[in-house]
């Protein structure tokens, strides 16, 4: 767990709901102290993922357009 926590700094967060995005960003940045990149759709996440090089991706399941599972699939194949 400790080594995992030490490594985990950059989080790519994918969420379509703006209010939840705002709350989660605040929690992750202010309480967790992580570097967070917010994407509001699966498509955006696929575009941004490589450049941001996250340690972890936090992915919403139900989203309009590309949903969580298809985003995950696209990220794996990309």
């Amino acid at each position, binding site marked *: 767990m400790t080594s995992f926590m030490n490594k985990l700094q950059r989080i790519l967060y994918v969420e379509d709901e703006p209010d*939840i995005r705002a709350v989660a960003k*605040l929690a992750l940045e*202010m309480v967790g102290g992580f570097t967070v990149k917010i994407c509001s759709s699966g498509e955006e996440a696929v575009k941004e993922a490589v450049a941001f090089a996250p340690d972890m991706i936090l992915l919403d399941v139900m989203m309009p357009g590309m949903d969580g*599972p298809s985003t995950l*699939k696209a990220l*794996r194949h990309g």
Partner: protein
Amino acid sequence: MCNYLDSLIKCKDSPNDSDWTMEFMSDYIKGITGYPASDFINSVVRSYASIIHPLDVKLVDSSIEESIREKRPYDIEYRVLDSHDGIKWVHEKGLGIFDGDGKLLHLDGVIFDVTVKKKLEEKNKLLADHNEKIREALRESEEHLRTIIDTTPECVKLTDADDRLLEMNAAGLAMIEADSMDQVLHVPVSDLLLPEHREAFQALNKSVRQGNKGALVFEIQGLKGTRRWMETHAVPMTMRTGETVVLAITRDITERKRIDRMKTEFVSTVSHELRTPLTSISGALGLLAGGALGEVPTQMKQMIDIAYQNSQRLTHMINDLLDIEKMSADKMDFDMRTQPLMPLIEQALEANRLYGAKRGVMLALTGAAPAAEVSVDSQRLLQVMSNLLSNAIKYSPDQGTVAIAVEQQDAWVRVKVIDRGPGIPAEFYDRIFQKFSQADSSDTRQKGGSGLGLAIAREMVERMGGKIGFESVEGEGATFFIELPLRDAESPSSIIDPQMFHAQGAPRVLVVEDNEVSHKVISAMIGGRFDIDLATTLSEARTKMALERYEVVILDITLPDGSGWDLLEEIHTWQPGTRVVIFSGTEMTAAEARKVDAVLLKSQTSKEQFLDAINSRIQPTKIK
């Protein structure tokens, strides 16, 4: 001339002689009438006409007059009154004797006693009338019954020992989209059912033919392709031939199913929609309450805490509602794994300790079973334990203790949660595990909760193969317990552990199968040669197919969240070129078998056949 069977007569030549005065009469007449012939000759004592039944006089007169007029014989049957005023039936044949000028000289005739024959005829006629009336009544009653059966909106049908259709009413024919009975006579009814329902349907009919009653819900596909949900009630009926057939009354419940689904979807949609804003609210309040944005004045903090706690309560209720709907729609997945029980119990205690501490309620583990291994979905078991623990804490007095005791028995392990609260009133026993039930409706406000916790707990425990129950003395507390079947660490069921399936570098096989016995059978047949991945539900299979590439998919038809057939198209889309092998408990039709690469029957498949079915395209790796 005298004949002892009949009475010969000779009447005077007097057509206007209404007394039918006899010139001669043989003595046989005494046998018929009781009067000697001498009485009648020349009407010495009485005339013959005087003993003819008054109702027949006219017939006798007119018949004989007509015979004389037309100079041809007469032949009549009529009644006479005997010396005891009894009625005798006689048959008289005769003809007029005329002189050369055509003048009537006299009548020659013969009279037979036909009383016995007549009485028999009368009796037969009465009997025939009676029979006709019965037949008529039967016809009428059958017609009524036929009308009732033909106009009832339910399907009424008879099937024989091979489940073939013998009779079906109009409503039934409409349901299966047949134009006439001829079209479907002797057709096996199970052919109309969707494959996943056939096994249960045949089992029901078998049981009914053995003399039981039964009911079943299944889906059919009509001859023109329309799918319908049906609910059938079947009883045995013994025919005159001694054969027992199945009489089934079947109702179309498609509409009810649709409304049920709409209701479920509505609740689920609304709950999801409610949960999204609620997540923002409780997230934002949580950050404020936790001081993430700095200190807030005490009074404001108090208000934020109230808002935060209540938003969490609301989240909890909505989650319960979603869970119960998911379970009633059979959409909840259980990730069953064999694992030690105690760590899960400890985890559940830890998770609820804080909730207890708020009211000074202690959680104490008073009995443990360190060796107990169970096959459960750990998240679901934690949820069940949390429901029981939070209930126990909720109803415990302040500063009380909730005891948790784990007891290992032969094949079961029992987890007890014991509180010293008010206990459960006896009149509530029946409803305690029902949805939306709380002992006292005024309780809801006092103690909080959705009234769904125990209903969810029971459903989850039962879905994991366990039981739930309680004991309580009102005023002294309640003990809730769950019982789970023990997994013997050395038993083959631990083969379920996915670790055992992986043969590195071997061709990958996805087994979509919810039955543990079948898992074992499959792993025994091909384990080691192939890298086996397990999915126990359709949704799990979908997830796995989205992430991995498989050379073979072994597919069961009856799965907890639907039919294996539903997956076929997705397999072809997601895993092009993958070999699909059906491994099912029921036989397939030829048309179904053509849709896949191979069909194997669970009860009749040898290891060689199994390997053949998988091997015909790919080469398994030999692992040494």
